[in-house]
């Protein structure tokens, strides 16, 4: 009965998808709330904002924060790539090799870029 079944590599992608999904469920609403509502509303008396260049660099001075930012971007990308791939399939777009490579390829690219960029971040 075993001959008919080949082991799937889906677990790898599923774990990344799951991690991204969990992250999104835990903090994404709050994060969007911050960038989309709190930032525009909460201007200081001198017009200084929560997203001022130096302040943001300051926040990211802590290496842990950098890792978290890059990690978050990467995981969200993997989450999205995985679901979009399946969504295409669900909608009748045949999920051949090409589609698979482009979805997961983009996610990998985003991850690489995110990692590279946080390393290049100037210190405040």
């Amino acid at each position, binding site marked *: 009965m075993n001959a008919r079944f080949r082991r799937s590599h889906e677990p790898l992608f599923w774990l990344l998808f799951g991690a991204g999904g969990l992250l999104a469920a835990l903090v994404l609403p709050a994060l969007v709330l911050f960038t*989309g509502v709190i930032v525009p509303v909460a201007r200081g008396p001198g017009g200084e904002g929560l997203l001022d260049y130096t302040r943001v660099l300051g926040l990211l001075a802590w290496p842990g924060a950098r890792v978290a930012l890059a990690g978050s971007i990467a995981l969200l990308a993997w989450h999205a790539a*995985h679901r979009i791939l399946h*969504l295409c399939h669900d909608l009748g777009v045949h999920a051949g090799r090409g589609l698979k490579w482009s979805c997961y390829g983009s996610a990998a690219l985003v991850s690489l870029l995110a990692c590279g960029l946080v390393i290049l971040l100037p210190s405040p």
Partner: protein
Amino acid sequence: MTPLPTWQRGMRGWWRRDPAFRRYLLREATSVAIGAYALMLLAGLGCLVAGPAAWQRWEGLILSPVGLLLQAVVFAAAVIHAVSWFRLMPLTIPPLGRPGRRLADGAIHAGAWAASALCSLGLLGWLVYGA
């Protein structure tokens, strides 16, 4: 034996059959918004590296009407995502606790939402009052 003659119906437009399918597709489609947001963050990171001018352009972009609209969509998607994710969570994790005293779904839901609240508050606190 001759193969049985049968009629195979296709799957075209299957989501029209049941509202549950459309809810499912909506849930899956949240990933598009989430992906877009990830790209937005990535772009911001790039601008941050490129220097203050680039950063300011990025900030202007996300605070522009278009940027805000996009974020409104992302926010809605994130909420739908979180609600469905936590609702389905008990189905995906192995049974917790000992035989006969398994953790109930309700406890898992409550735990998940509590964790979400905690993380969100922590994150917001750091973003607003940090540094």
